[in-house]
């Protein structure tokens, strides 16, 4: 029941390709008709080969020529049909993948933060490929298979009803067996799929951090964990593989029974003279052709099993809850002046661990807000909330006096330039990365942005300058250089508000001085939130938010806070205590 609805859903993706589906159906019918007509002709030819000195060669030549034409035409239609099914399959699979990808861009960040990336990846890549395999064999073989079965019955009926009755009687047996096996292998395939997902996650973790693993000599321990999963995969894999592989021999056996039955009954009829030898040979070849689709269908069903198991996992992504859409009356924020106000904001990642509670503060346009506090005090969370990566549980955040819940996410986010501690670059050229916010930016603007981020000089020293490819894991440039590129990326777009999260932590101090100057210029006239460790930055801040355990415990300017002699003063002085 569950599986049929899965299948129906999977097939609904082929709807846009209905014309080709129709063409494929017609071509399939033509192919099958022609293919089935050939044995009739062959049977007639064989009847002409009656015995010694009784062969009619003139009639035989004519029939043989007919066979040639029929077979040639069948080949052509078969090829054309394949073209149609190919098209349907690959376009459908592309659409499914796009759908999953689109969903990933609309899920709340929580989804991506809490699901192992390796697992999502294996759904979008491996599982979808499995769907392609399943669909392709489904279309090419299931299609012709069913048509062949129907047509064969028709052809057989026209020759001999009793033999046909026998063949039709045995048919359900074959289907029953195939279905039985499919039902039992489905759960095993799912188990295999799940174990694979788990394994991919472990591999991503270990191989992705191989250097670290080696630095601690943890190779053996990780290998043991891997072995454990590997063994589990082996156990369920053997079962899945064997069960699905049972289908073929079993149906082949039943086919043998059909063949034998036809042979026997046919022989009895022939002995009585009710059937010619040629017709019997035609029947035998039908018995083969009739049962062949059963062979294939059961093979296809095995493929469909894994395709459905894959589809189930992909649909889980496609069905994931989306973030609440922008309100219909949500406005597009343009040229924000930069008044930001938090009032009574509460938020936590999980209901059982309170984090931010009743947080209020406000920033005037152009102000520099420094967020300081001990590690893990909720600074990064504040950014998640400002950018609406996560939605608040209580209270409200206003920008230019407008509740951010009523501003489109895209326009809200584009109003902020963000440099995170966790540097992320795309695989692509340096130029592509800097121009990420505006791919149409001309080269001059890219260079200008790089210059203002003080990245230009190192970029020029790279092997291909601005056209140097950055590898996926960014291992060909240093951490500091990555950060400079991230800064350049923001420099190019230069939105009205800025979020800088410990942005300069891995840049050497000489470069940092220059970056700091660029920042000062950049932040002038722009409301900026800076999660900073540099007291120089903090000292110049218009407002310092001192956070501890998710609460703002002090706020004010540097001098006031120092004079107050509270938490901030302690924090500040501790720097000199080294």
């Amino acid at each position, binding site marked *: 029941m569950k599986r049929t609805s899965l299948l129906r859903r999977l097939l609904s993706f082929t709807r846009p390709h209905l014309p080709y589906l129709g063409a494929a159906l017609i071509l399939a019918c033509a192919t099958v008709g022609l293919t089935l007509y050939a044995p009739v002709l062959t049977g007639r030819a064989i009847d002409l*080969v009656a*015995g010694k000195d009784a*062969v009619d060669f003139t009639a035989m030549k004519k029939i043989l020529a007919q*066979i040639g034409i029929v*077979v040639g035409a069948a080949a052509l239609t*078969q*090829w054309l049909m394949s*073209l149609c099914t*190919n*098209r349907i399959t*690959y376009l459908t*699979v592309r659409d499914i993948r796009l759908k999953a*990808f689109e969903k*990933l861009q609309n899920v709340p960040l929580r989804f991506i933060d809490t699901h192992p990336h390796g697992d999502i*990846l294996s759904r979008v890549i491996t599982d979808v490929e499995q769907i392609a395999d399943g669909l392709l064999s489904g279309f090419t073989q299931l299609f012709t298979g069913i048509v062949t079965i129907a047509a064969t019955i028709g052809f057989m009926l026209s020759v001999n009803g009793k033999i046909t009755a026998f063949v039709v009687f045995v048919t359900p047996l074959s289907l029953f067996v195939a279905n039985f096996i499919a039902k039992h292998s489905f759960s095993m395939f799912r188990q295999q799929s799940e174990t694979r997902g788990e394994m*991919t996650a472990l*591999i*991503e*973790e*270990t191989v992705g951090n191989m*250097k*670290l693993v*080696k*630095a*601690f*000599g*943890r190779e053996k321990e*990780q290998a043991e964990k891997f072995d454990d999963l*590997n063994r589990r995969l*082996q156990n369920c*894999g053997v079962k899945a*593989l064997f069960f699905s*592989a049972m289908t*073929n*021999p079993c149906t*082949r056996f039943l086919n043998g*029974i059909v063949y034998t039955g036809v042979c026997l009954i046919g022989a009895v009829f022939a002995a009585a003279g009710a059937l010619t030898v040629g017709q019997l*040979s035609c029947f*035998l*070849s039908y018995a083969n052709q009739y049962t062949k689709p059963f062979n294939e269908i059961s093979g296809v069903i095995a493929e469909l099993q894994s395709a459905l198991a894959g589809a189930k996992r992909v649909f889980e992504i496609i069905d994931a809850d989306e973030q609440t859409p922008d309100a219909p009356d949500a406005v597009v924020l343009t040229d924000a002046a930069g008044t930001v106000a938090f009032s009574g904001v509460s938020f936590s990642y999980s209901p059982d661990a309170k984090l931010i509670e009743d947080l209020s503060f406000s920033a005037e346009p152009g102000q520099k807000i420094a967020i300081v506090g*001990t*590690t893990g005090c909720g600074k990064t969370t504040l950014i998640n909330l400002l950018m609406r990566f996560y939605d608040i549980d209580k209270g409200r955040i206003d920008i230019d006096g407008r509740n951010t819940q009523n501003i489109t996410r*895209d*326009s809200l986010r584009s109003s*902020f330039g*963000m440099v995170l501690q966790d540097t992320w670059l*795309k695989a692509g050229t340096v130029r592509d990365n800097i121009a*990420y916010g505006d791919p149409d930016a001309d080269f001059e603007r890219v260079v200008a942005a790089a210059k203002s981020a003080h990245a230009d000089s190192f970029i020029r020293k790279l092997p291909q300058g601005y056209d140097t490819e950055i*590898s996926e*894991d960014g291992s060909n440039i*240093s*951490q*500091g250089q990555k950060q400079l590129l991230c800064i350049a990326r923001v420099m190019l777009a230069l939105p009205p508000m800025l979020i800088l999260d*410990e942005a300069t932590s891995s840049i050497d*101090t000489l470069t940092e001085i220059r970056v700091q100057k660029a920042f000062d210029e950049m932040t002038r006239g722009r409301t900026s939130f800076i999660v900073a460790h*540099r007291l120089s930055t903090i000292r110049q801040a218009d407002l310092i938010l001192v956070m501890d355990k998710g609460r703002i415990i002090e706020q004010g300017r540097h001098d006031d806070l120092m004079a107050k002699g509270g938490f901030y003063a*302690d*924090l500040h002085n501790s720097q*000199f205590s*080294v």
Partner: protein
Amino acid sequence: MLKLARFLSAYKKECVIGPLFKFLEACFELIVPLITAVIIDKGIKTGDTACIARMGAVMVGLGVLGLACSLTAQYFAAKAAMGFGTEVRAALFRHISKLSYSEIDDIGMPTLITRLTEDVNQAQAGVNRLIRLFLRSPFIVVGALIMAFTVDTETAFVFLAATPVIGIVIWFITAKVLPCYKTIQAVLDRVSLLTRENLTGVRVIRAFSKQSFERQRFSETCGDLCEKQRSAGQIAALLNPATSVIVNAAVIGIVFVGGLQVDAGRLSQGEVIALVNYMTQILIALIAFADLIVITTKAAASAERVAEVFALPTEPDETDKTETTKTGYPRLVFDDVSFAYKHSDVPALRDVSFSVPAGSTVGVIGGTGSGKSTLINLIARFYRPIKGKITLDGKDVRKYETEELRRKIGIVPQKAALFKGTVRDNLTWRDKNATDDDLWTALSIAQGDSFIRSRKDGLDAVIEQNGRNLSGGQKQRLTIARALVGKPEILILDDSASALDYATDARLRKAVRGETKDMTVFIVSQRVAAVRNSDLILVLDDGRIAGIGKHEDLFENCPVYRDICLSQSNDKEAA
């Protein structure tokens, strides 16, 4: 594929039994047409129903035997294939963990991951099919040929002519399709890359509101993939029609030549039918074989990619147990060491010499790309110098056994990474037998005890993959504690306080210095504040040592160091 054949060695039995039973099954199948011939020539011609029934019973018997053989074969094939996959995976995983840092840099981690997952799966599927079909198809083809010759030599020549033609067509089409699969795999890798990027970079992508841009690129790449798959499919789709045309031409030939033979009285009608049946069997076997070739080539391409990883050299083993550590030597000596990364002409470190006595604290400072991390990586022998020698307690680090070396050194990398598991699992990396007290001590030095204590499960608190449920600073403190457990002789903090605020960082350094008296500590940093109180400061500039000494001396005599200090004077008084 052959390069991976050794992984089947534990499954020799399965690899023999599987095909053997397939062979038996094929034999039974080959007898069937002969029985049909008997039924026609004897049973029908003479109206001998008893004979027909007898032959029918024989056919059913053959069917049952065939089923039994086939199931046996499938079972052993599944067992061998999964076994093969399991062994390859285990070996590949271990091999990857033995690769040197240079090789990992070179091939890239994402590729390693795909090869360990998808490629091994493909190869495994290939083995399964191979065992099941690779021998069965030739059995049937050759067997049918032989049977044809025993029935009638003249007509059998039609078989001899047709079979190679089918073979050539199959070969031609496969040769065309094969390269397509390579391109398809490359595009699929790109699809995979884009997906991964959109997961890891989700914040930046959303911050720039680039979702539609990303969707566009993903959709283009998927479209490209679709095109490539379709054009490969178009060629592959030629296979069935082409072979069926040839086989039917052969059937025409058989009926015609057979007709001549029957006319001459050398052949019976039943035997002509048997011959036609044999031709059909050959066709079915060859088509299965062609499918097999396609699957196998995919598998072979994957196997090749797996074999490439196996071909990567593992870290050279230069360990020498005879050489022992010596007393009276400085803890660590760099003797004229130079190093260049693979594929780089510019050395990352040049002529570096210094020595560090046990128990001292060494600060390493310098700009981005000055070689700080490289220097650290050389100490732990992640890379090997191209010139010069590094000795640890008087023994060349190259001569150390890996475990011995790793036991001596605790390292805190720049990027804080934790693994899925409990806090305890993550902390006992260096010392499996560490007691809870040991762990708490390490945590308190690393300033991480309070936040762990605040968790309900304490040391058993669960850490998600990549430490997703912890903040950057929490992760960093745990990685520091991890390096401290088991009391290493050398502790390396590679710019590892970047996610910590000043206060925590300062307390951390104080604690490290206070509680680890005989530990030699390397502190790599950009901040003067972090290194200024070190016993020894190494100033690096563009891969060279620009100065060695104490803070005051260096400030006095080393221009590079002074510049760095002055550049940070905003933050604090320079000297």
